[in-house]
């Protein structure tokens, strides 16, 4: 005889499987795995340790900012200025270090510059009430211009006394993993916990779900929004520093149109552009899929001119899927 408890436990048991398969992240991850498998079979260059090393490092850069972008998107906003924040941070640390400053101090000031960008974004969006799209589009232009002014649009490849340290931090590896991956792991774990278990995380999703309700229940919405944009700028700043060390030289076209790959990664990973949804894990998996696809285009000998087409299509398809999903429920 089946009791009601049996039925409940059975439905809960089914829930675990259906909950995993119901997660968009699961399917994106599956797609990435399938892409990796087919590339391993189709090419003899993909599964080499050299290529895998490059893929993991490249994807880490996009994934780190995608976590910051996920916070912004989940709160119902958008940040188009991250690519420009990357180059501004890279320029600040390069100029300071080539002037003889230590890595620690220069990195702190560079992150300060990134946080300042986020602060200005946040103030204009939260307190002046301007649309995030407009503010961060303006900042996209302004921050890159500032980086050009700062460097006089010259390439910098000499980083003073801490030159080797910078190159080691951004371009080196430990235990067989490139250093940016460690930064990504730390950020991913911390932010997964923060999103779920802290007030700050809860308020990100509350604001994205219903900003009016968040305000009425006494959540400090404006202050929270400023910190959200500062956080996304902070992740861009981290990447700016790491990329400087990895490349060993900085030009003012660093991070150009990176915001698109980052937004694509976040959206593919389940961040809802209408706000209220998104996970750190999803952002990482989304970035992984994009990098694998990008890498496969190169390995399969397809012109790199097609990359923009793929990223653009990805964003649109991911949003279309999201629409279908929300219509079904």
């Amino acid at each position, binding site marked *: 005889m089946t009791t009601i408890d049996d039925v409940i436990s059975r439905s809960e048991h089914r829930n675990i499987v259906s909950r995993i398969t119901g997660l968009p992240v699961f399917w994106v991850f599956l797609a990435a795995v399938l892409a990796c498998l087919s590339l391993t079979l189709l090419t003899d260059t993909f599964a080499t340790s050299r290529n895998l090393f490059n893929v993991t490092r490249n994807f880490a850069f996009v994934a780190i900012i995608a976590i910051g972008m996920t916070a912004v998107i989940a709160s119902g906003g958008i940040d188009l200025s991250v690519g420009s924040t990357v180059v501004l941070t890279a320029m600040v640390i390069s100029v300071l270090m080539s002037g003889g400053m230590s890595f620690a101090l220069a990195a702190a000031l560079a992150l300060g510059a990134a946080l300042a960008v986020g602060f200005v974004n946040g103030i204009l969006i939260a307190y002046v009430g301007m649309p995030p799209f407009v503010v961060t589009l303006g900042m996209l232009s302004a921050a890159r211009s500032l980086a050009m002014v700062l460097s006089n649009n010259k390439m910098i490849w000499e980083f003073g006394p801490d030159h080797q340290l910078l190159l080691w931090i951004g371009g080196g590896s430990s235990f067989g993993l490139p250093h940016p991956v460690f930064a990504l792991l730390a950020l991913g774990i911390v932010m997964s916990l923060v999103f779920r278990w802290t007030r700050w995380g809860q308020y990100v999703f509350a604001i994205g*779900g*219903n900003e009016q309700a968040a305000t009425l*229940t*006494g959540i400090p919405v404006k202050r929270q929004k400023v910190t959200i944009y500062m956080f996304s700028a902070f992740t861009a700043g981290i990447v700016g520093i790491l990329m400087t060390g990895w490349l060993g030289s900085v030009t003012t076209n660093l991070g150009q149109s990176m915001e698109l790959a980052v937004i694509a990664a976040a959206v593919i990973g389940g961040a809802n552009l209408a706000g*209220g*949804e998104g996970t750190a894990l999803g952002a990482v998996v989304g970035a992984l899929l994009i990098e694998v696809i990008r890498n496969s285009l190169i390995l399969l000998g397809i012109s790199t001119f097609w990359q923009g087409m793929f990223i653009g299509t990805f964003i649109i398809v991911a949003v279309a899927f999201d629409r279908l999903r929300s219509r079904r*429920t």
Partner: protein
Amino acid sequence: MSRLKLSGIAKHFGAIQALQGVSLEVAPGEVLGLMGDNGAGKSTLVKIIAGNFPPSSGTIRIDDKPVHFHRPVDAQDEGIEVVYQDLALCDNLTAASNVFLGREAMRRVGPVRIIDYPAMNRRAGELFRQLKSETRPRDLVRKMSGGQRQAVAIARTLLAEPKIVLMDEPTAAISVRQVAEVLDLIRRLRDRGISVILISHRMPDVFAVADRIAVLRRGDLVANKRTDASSPEEVTGLITGAIELA
């Protein structure tokens, strides 16, 4: 003793007189139906009681103690809670998270403070049981019926052990069966000694649940009488102005 006592409340916005000399009392555990046509001053009065803005003149007393509200938090501190017309719920969060929105239960784990979801789910479950609602704390609000959503919004007010709950058009946009549910919720609040001010356009709902009815017309209080001494016809007349005063 009166729970809430308004004396000579007036409010003008520039040259526009939204309220003039409204005096009104609500007893503990009393349900007051506040009625009036659009622009009669209902929402202005509610916003004054909820602390959204201060009156131009007049005094508010709670339990015979004069109070002055400058922000909604001031009113909350005095035990006034509001259920907004659109309920102010986040669809993407669980019922429990919505009940505790902005007042999350926290606990310490080492040096950090984290949200205490088990405690929130437990307490929200208790509140739903008190309201005799079948809402489950862990369910997403997105998947709930109109009545359940009302229960979440009302449970939120109960969290603060309120003295007065203001409800703005709670039955405006839900089905007939759910209206009955909401009216039951209001009776439960009353049974707990909480005063309820119900703003509504729907005559049958007000007559079903209110002990007393107050009618505003163009910023004037034109009636304030027991429900059993009035009739829907009379109230309609008072709202439209066909009856001058009652």
